[in-house]
Each structure stands twice: as structure tokens, then as C-alpha cells.
């Protein structure tokens, strides 16, 4: 094993600047979309009084949970002492901060009164998980920045492990907190489930790693840095495992709902007759986002091909957006059980008359705002790797650690 050398991302300037220009253009368009929605009011969005959180939240929540998931790679290297992952720690931390920034920006830009952000930072209601999350998000950024320092600075070395543990615990709390935003709402059947907290953690593992792998492969490919088969095998297997864990939680969530008789209607609607939501659940979330990538990643031949691995990662991300669309929007579209045992025949407020789902179609400004958040995350990452030493020069097999255990560690017990 050779010494790992980190180096700035030195792709040709024209290539770099065109990438930045493209991302900046997306951000500019998102800023215009924000201005339009803020100036005109949310009526230009597809959101309404039934579906109050729309497409921007799908993007924001995806970025936030993927951010915490992206940090896993660093945690595995530091906390779980797998040296093969150590060279990836810096990029993992950078991507985590960048995606969190992107997600939070989208969230803030979608507020009815974004100019009152200062109110949200000076008035706290601590019975609200939302208020806790403000601290979880800001704390995450501070901790990950300290984590990056401990990885990159010689003086930070001794602090690397404790900061790594703190970062791991914090990211678990953060994603549980994000899931709990939905998981403790008694009003809506789909959200009255504490399992959403751990389920979001499991989803974050998969989405964060998929994004990380794509960024890693793109960054290395652009500059001709090598990634060895051993590293790819590790990441690939890990992604497949994470998809499996996410599927497990998805299964348990729905089985629990099916077991509870009062949620039969919800499950029937979601799994069989929910239109776009049923389609996105089965095709987007389960098939395209979970089963197909798992098949690719475990396939003896395809799993060795770079393009197929990239495809699997992209499918996981597509599945992630489908899943969050179903979780966030589908769960709101299903009519609330205002009067159990009754059918609402008429209502002046679209209360799910005759069991009808609430309408919602994302509008272009909402989608562009969300895309802007992704662009912010990628822009921060691109600038970060360009100006600082975040990426190792090589991840070839002769550079990365040969074994996942530290070689100099004393064995726990010697065979007699």
C-alpha cells in the first residue's frame, strides 16, 4: 500500500469553467423561479391547501438525506476503521456539506415568507421537530467542517476519531429528525408512523452513496485518475446492501400499515389505485429504484462494468425522487380521515369528496427551484475539489489498503 496523495481537481480550465457556467446558469434560473414564486405568491405553484408541500420539498428532502448518507463513507473509514475507505473521507465530507446547503436553500426559498428567515433563527418552539432540525442542520455543517479539518490538517489527526464518532451520531440524529418531521403527524394516516425516522436513515444510506459514487466516478474519469476494481467492488456491494436495507424498511412500513385495519384504505389506494403515486411506488421506487439496481450490482458480469454501475447509481437516484414524491406528496394527496365511517358528499374545501385524492401537479418553477438546489450542491463540490485537496490522486488497487482491517492492529484472540 502506497501513501495516499490528495490533489486538487486539475481538469482543463475550459472544461472546468464550462461546468461551473452550466451549474451557475441552473442556479440563476432557479433564482428567477424563486423570484417569480415569491413575487406572485405560491398560487403559481402546484401546491394548494391540501398538498401544502410540493416538488421543492421532494428536492430539499432528497438533498438533505443524501447529504447525511454521503457522510457514511467518511464514517466507515474513521469510526469503523476500514482503511480502504479512508481516502474517500474528504470528498464524502465535502459532498455532505454541499448537499445540505443545496437542500436547505431550496427549503428556505420555498417558504411563504423567506425574508423572515431571521425569525426562524431567533424564535424557537422546542416542541417542534422542525425547530430541532434547524440546530441539527447547522450543527451538522459545523461538525463536518471540523471533521474535514481533522482529516486534512496534520494537527487535526488526533481529533479525527472523536469528531468522526460525533459526526456519525449527529448524521443519524439529523436523518431521524428529517424523517420525524413526517413521522409524528397524527393528522395524516401515512405520516402517523414513527418508523419513518429509521426508514429515512435507511433511504439516506442508499441515496447518499449513489450520489457519492457518481460524483467520485465523474471526478476521477474527467481527470483520468484511476479507480481500482477493489474499491469499485466495495462501493458496489455497499450500495446493494444499502438498497436492501431501504427495501426492508419500506416493506415493514407497508406491512405495518396493512396490519392496522384503519389504514387499509390508504394502502389500497397507494398500492393499487393511486394513479401516479401507485405508478411511482411500484415502477419508480421498487422496480427502477431498488430491484433493477440491485440486480445490476449483484450481476456477475454487469457489476464489473463501469457504465452499468453508473447506471445503477443513477437509477437509485431516480428511485429516490420517486420514493420521496410518493412519501411527501402522495401521503398528502390521500384524503384525511376527518369523519371515519362516513363519506363526504360535498365540501367547500376539497375534503376528499367521495374519497377523491387532492390534486397536485408540479409546475415548472417548482422543478427549476429544486434543480437549482442540486446545482448549488454540485457547484460547491466542484469548487471545493478544484481549490482544495479533497480527492486522492489514485484509488487503484496498489494504492488503497489491501485489507479492510488495519494491518498493525493486534489480534483480539490468537488461536491456540
Amino acid at each position: 500500500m502506497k501513501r495516499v496523495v490528495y490533489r486538487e481537481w486539475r481538469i482543463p480550465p475550459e472544461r472546468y469553467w464550462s461546468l461551473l457556467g452550466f451549474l451557475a446558469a441552473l442556479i440563476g434560473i432557479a433564482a428567477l423561479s424563486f423570484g417569480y414564486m415569491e413575487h406572485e405568491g405560491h398560487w403559481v405553484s402546484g401546491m394548494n391547501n391540501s398538498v401544502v408541500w410540493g416538488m421543492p420539498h421532494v428536492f430539499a428532502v432528497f438533498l438533505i438525506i443524501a447529504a447525511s448518507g454521503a457522510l457514511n463513507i467518511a464514517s466507515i473509514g474513521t469510526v469503523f476503521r476500514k482503511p480502504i475507505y479512508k481516502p474517500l473521507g474528504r470528498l464524502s465530507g465535502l459532498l455532505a456539506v454541499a448537499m445540505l446547503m443545496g437542500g436547505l436553500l431550496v427549503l428556505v426559498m420555498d417558504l411563504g415568507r423567506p425574508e423572515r428567515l431571521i425569525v426562524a433563527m431567533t424564535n424557537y418552539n422546542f416542541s417542534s421537530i422542525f425547530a430541532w432540525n434547524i440546530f441539527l442542520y447547522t450543527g451538522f455543517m459545523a461538525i463536518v467542517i471540523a471533521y474535514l479539518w481533522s482529516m486534512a490538517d496534520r494537527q487535526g489527526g488526533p481529533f479525527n476519531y472523536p469528531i468522526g464518532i460525533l459526526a456519525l451520531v449527529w448524521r443519524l440524529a439529523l436523518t431521524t429528525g428529517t424523517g420525524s418531521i413526517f413521522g409524528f403527524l397524527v393528522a395524516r394516516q401515512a405520516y402517523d408512523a414513527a418508523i419513518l425516522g429509521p426508514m429515512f436513515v435507511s433511504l439516506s444510506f442508499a441515496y447518499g452513496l449513489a450520489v457519492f459514487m457518481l460524483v467520485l466516478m465523474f471526478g476521477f474519469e474527467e481527470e483520468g485518475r484511476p479507480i481500482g476494481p477493489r474499491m469499485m467492488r466495495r462501493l458496489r456491494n455497499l450500495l446493494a446492501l444499502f438498497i436492501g436495507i431501504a427495501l426492508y424498511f419500506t416493506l415493514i412500513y407497508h406491512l405495518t400499515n396493512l396490519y392496522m385495519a384503519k389504514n387499509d384504505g390508504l394502502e389500497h389506494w397507494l398500492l393499487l389505485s393511486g394513479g401516479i403515486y401507485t405508478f411511482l411506488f411500484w415502477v419508480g421506487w421498487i422496480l427502477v429504484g431498488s430491484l433493477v439496481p440491485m440486480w445490476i450490482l449483484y450481476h456477475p458480469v454487469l457489476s464489473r462494468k463501469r457504465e452499468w454501475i453508473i447506471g445503477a447509481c443513477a437509477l437509485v437516484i431516480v428511485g429516490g425522487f420517486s420514493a420521496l414524491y410518493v412519501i411527501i406528496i402522495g401521503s398528502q394527496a390521500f384524503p384525511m380521515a376527518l369523519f371515519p365511517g362516513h363519506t363526504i358528499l360535498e365540501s367547500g374545501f376539497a375534503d376528499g369528496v367521495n374519497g377523491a385524492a387532492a390534486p397536485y401537479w408540479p409546475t415548472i418553477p417548482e422543478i427549476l427551484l429544486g434543480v437549482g438546489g442540486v446545482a448549488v450542491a454540485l457547484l460547491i463540490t466542484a469548487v471545493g475539489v478544484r481549490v482544495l485537496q479533497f480527492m486522492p490522486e489514485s484509488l487503484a488497487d496498489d494504492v488503497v489498503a489491501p485489507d479492510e482491517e488495519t494491518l498493525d492492529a493486534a489480534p483480539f484472540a490468537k488461536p491456540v
Partner: protein
Amino acid sequence: MNENATRIASTSDETPASTVDAGRRGFIGTAAGLSAAALVAPGVFLHSVAAAPRSEPVTDSVRWGLLIDTAKCADGCSACVDACDRENGLDLQEPHGSESKWEHQKSVWIRKVKLQDNQTGRITNLPMMCQHCEHPPCVDVCPTGASFKRADGIVMVDRHLCIGCRYCMMACPYKARSFIHQNTSGQLTAVPRGKGCVESCNLCVHRRDHGEESTACVDACAQEGHGAIVFGDLKDPDSAISQRLREIPSRQIREDLVLNTGVRYAGV
């Protein structure tokens, strides 16, 4: 007030004394006059003082609530909805977008709901609004504390603190809250509204704070002759609402959530 009381008292005093036992009759007359003054005066006094804006903080000595007798709520009548819209300036909202979109985006503080019992087919009409829970989920989840419950039980939104995150709308089991999706114009002084904030029924809080005795929906329903809605203090055992609640069976919507709502329904 004293003028009024004196006027009533003196009117009674002018009763002509008969020749028989004039002193006794005069005494009774004076006593009656004084009693009348004593009875009327506090009311007049309270009214004249309470008509001014309330300057003391609200206390939990009262808990405002509504009782809705669905048996009296008429099919097709929207008097309460119209009155609420007028009282709070919601009728000043201008439609935005397509008609169907506007239907889902406009602010609604009170709406008529027509229900059918799945088992028996029985039809019920009722008005739905913020249920003014004792333990409001909207207040729990609001990150800034904009969604709050007053000591007198009224749940409302502080428009200076509301950042428009809409989490309270996600949490409300009654779908009682609306988001102001568009610019507002011509709003009423007593009911400030603004784009990007959340709002809902506040039991005509401006009336509460000026000492008036009912809400717009209650008045309108009574005017229509239905009298399906009773407003009052749930803590006062002698209030009309408390008395009526003792007389007829009532329930809370989504009683399973144990939110102890201030709005009760009979006949659902």
C-alpha cells in the same frame, strides 16, 4: 351608564300614586325602580366599558367554544360561510389561476360539509372550522411559535412570526388552515392578512377583544332562523353553550386524537 340607570329609575318613580295607601305603593314603586336600575345598570356599565378595546391580557378564566347542532344545520344553507367571509375579508380574495385551481388555493376559514354515514346512509350537514383544540397539533409543530393558543382557548397565528413553512397545515387533523397563496388587497383593519402566511378561524377574535358576545357565523345562523351554532364560555356552567352541552349529547371530531376541542358537534 348612570344617566341611563337614572332615566329608568325616574321613569318608574313617576308611577302615579293612588289615594289608597299611597306611601306603600310609592315604596314598592321606588323599590321596583331601584331593582330595575340595579339589574340593568351592570349590563349597561359592562357594555359601555367593554365596547372599548380590551386592554388587559386574556386569562384562562374563560374558554371560548362552539356547539354545533347538526340537526339544525340546513342543507344548502351557507349563511355561516358567507358571514365569516364578510367578517374576515375573505370575500375580498380575487380568484387566481383556473377555477379548479382557485378552489384548492383560496383561503377558507369555515366550510359546509355534507356527510353520509356509510352504514346507515344518514345525511348530515355541518360547518367545519378550526376546532380550537386544548392540545393543538399545529401549535406543537410550529417552529417559530407563530401558531399559538391564547389563554382563553383561541388558537390562532401570529402573522409577524409566521414564516409560511406550512408545517401546521400538515399537522392539523381538521384541515382547518389555509395558506394565503396570492397577494391580498383591500383587507380589513381588524383582520390583517398577508401573502405567504397561514390563517384559520380565530373565533372572531377581534370581536372577543371588543367585548362583543358572538361570532359572525353564530349571528348569521341565528338570523337565518336555524340557530344551529351556539358560542360561549365552556368554563362557565351557566353559559348558554354549557347548558346546551349538558342537555344534548355531543362529540368532538376525531375524538380518538384526544385533543379536547373547543368546538363540539351534536348529531354526528
